[in-house]
């Protein structure tokens, strides 16, 4: 019985200690057309230090983010994504990087597929 109590206490304390105050949410448009884009955008973004979570939706072209505002600001995230070759509603991707995208990801000429 003692063990059960200890476990429960341990468990609940971890559950409720997770609320971090510096976490912020953001959502903006990132251009892309395919599942490969999704992979590139999500992976490329979540690997950024300070970004906790990234989910990009192919249909709406929306990226949803949770990030630590003490470690990174939103502008940096925008810029980083545009440097991956995917234009955001703030920064356009450099032409050179865009041209190097895989064929299926060329969102200026392809439609969602």
């Amino acid at each position: 019985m003692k063990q059960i109590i200890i476990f429960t206490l341990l468990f609940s304390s971890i559950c409720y200690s997770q609320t971090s105050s510096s976490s912020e949410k953001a959502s903006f448009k990132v251009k892309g057309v395919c599942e490969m884009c999704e992979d590139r955008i999500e992976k490329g973004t979540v690997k950024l230090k300070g970004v906790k979570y990234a989910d990009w939706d192919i249909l709406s072209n929306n990226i949803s983010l949770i990030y630590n505002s003490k470690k990174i600001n939103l502008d940096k995230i925008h810029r980083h994504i545009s440097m991956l070759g995917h234009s955001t509603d703030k920064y356009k991707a450099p032409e050179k990087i865009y041209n190097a995208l895989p064929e299926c990801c060329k969102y200026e000429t392809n439609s969602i597929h």
Partner: protein
Amino acid sequence: MSNFLKCLFLLTSFVSFSQNYFEGSVGYIDNDGLQKPLAGVSVFWENTSIGTLTDSIGYFKIKKLNNSKKLLFKFLGFDDKIIKVDKETYSEILLTESQNVLDEVIVNKKKKTIQKSYFKTQNITNVSSEELLKAACCNISESFDTNPSIDVNYSNAITGTKQVKMLGLESPYLLITEENIPMIRGASQVYGLSFIPGTWVESMQITKGTGSVTNGFESISGQINVELNKPFSDSPFFINIYSNNMGRNEINLHSNKIITDKLSTGLYIHANKNDHILDNNNDGFLDHPISEAINLFNRWQYINPSKGTVVFLGYRFMSDNKEIGENNKNKVFIREPWSGEINTKRFDSNFKFGYVNPSIPYQSLGFQMAYSYHDQDSFFGKRNYLINQKSFYSSIIYNSIIGSTLNKIKLGLNYSYDDYDELFNRVSIDMMSSSQRIDNSIGGFFEYSYDSLDEISLVAGIRYDFHNNLGNFFTPRLHFRYQPLEKSVIRLSAGTGRKASNVISENQNIFATGREIFLPKNAGNFYGLAPEKAFNYGISFRQGFYINNREVDITIDYYVTDFDNQVVVDWETQGKVSFYNLEGKSYAKSLQVDLEYEFSDNLFIKSTYKNYDVMKQYKSGFLQNPLTPKNRFFTNIEASTSTKSNGSKWKFDLTYNWVGKQRIPKHNLSLVKGFSNSYSLLNSQITKVFSKKFELYVGGENMSNYKQDKPVLGGYPFGTDFDTSIVYAPIHGSLFYIGLRLKS
């Protein structure tokens, strides 16, 4: 779950734009249940000519009007839709396809019915419900005939029961879960898989090697998880009828009702009957039992995306009766005929609750609890076997991240309680032996996963359990994945597993023999047998490449299970079955090579070679496991015609199995001494799909008609040399079946 997460996220996080505009995206749900955008949809305010078209991603933006609040969507082949726009600025609109226009022909890549992933850290194969259709009959224990990772054997000559093996080890060393609740264990070990109707299954996940710590310490050689149909996603109505030339008739009925957008319920009914008296091999015994079963399941599903909650509630009742024994119809006996009955009743109920924090999608909490009551009342000639098991299981699991979603953690607790009550005869004419036992355990686990999102991922888990009979112990498990190239992946896994051996219920084929049972002690929790403990480790390599633009896939798996302690079940001496603790070595080494090739859009071939080296120290020597072929070869060919506009097509499936020689335990009446011959089996099925709603199938099993000669040994069934346990090949000859599926 990930779809749910996405949908939650979509609903909760949209950008707010200026109030003067209304924007949104238009899509539809395709046949695979995926949301797809619609481009070129006319969007205009009702009774006006002000409008726009959606762009290539289905997106539109339209200026709000004062005189019209109703927005109309029009697109050829889809029903018109009107939405009311008030203060909102964004919406997602789903159009539904019109029923009265001709279906368009959609060409897409066929999904494999058995899917292996390059990205999962563990060696998990997903088996879809479509794969399960390939073995049309009837329950899960029979559904692995077309699956190369799992071997199906007959467990004896008279009960018609099939036993599954993985990595050369019997099913008790597997953890079999139903939606991650341990299910087939203890009393239900032998017949449990046959109590899950195949049509109830949405998909199965087969993990090779040590499993995740989240489901307990029991999985030694692997895990099979069965996902059942969910009321929200299953068809509103489904009926399946099956009948074969050996008198087996089955019916499955599903009815699902969506009550509100948050609540739905499903009722699943299965019944089977076989009253056909059959003795094709002329051994005087029925080839299969006369049987009758009913299985009812009602489940409720509640989802609330805005709050992030999912709830499942289900309960189930099952009754199964089998009559076995000598064919005493049209035959005069001068002695009492040998007969038996196996009657099982089972009740299951479970409750599941899941919560995903809508604003922090990577945090989630899951809770589940399950209660089951299992009662088997059986006799085999003059031997009785009664077992009753009451089980309670509960677990809570919390998911979160450290830093970012590259580092995930799982943390939780499991509690399990099992109350066993067992009565049996050691020999034919004997006092009943009885055993009562309560197993009680609580364990905590922690699992960390790292995913670099490209080459490397790993899952490291540890759990600590307090068990009233097994003691307190750690269970560590590790999985590692390295994917140097897009189409090559190496996986490593290692971990320990333990198990309280329910020796009698796991080896019920003793009772249809004259063998006397020898246990170290006559009483006590485990009759003086120590808990089983094993270490499993393995490596898997997979390489994909292209020939003629078609994908070829090679997988090589090598797994080793090393037993620290095992309960040795010794059938080596005629007239005896002895159980004792392992003294010496016991291991199972398994090598599997899979080759898959897609010849064309409509032709797919997979072949497998398996080599098992399963050795154990018996009192009589270091021997290969009996009735376990060292070599096996498997080929499955799947073909279909192209789908016509009305959804109709033909599907063909052919499975060839070659089973190598097997060591046969000594018995002076056995026709086979030493090793059995190798043999081949051929199964085939043809399905005519008439439309998405209706299909007919016919098929044959064991079409080459290979049968074991004289599977029942012993002239006098109440004598000590009577034995039905030495079975290495099918009991029946060829079997043919026909059936239909109808859904709406």
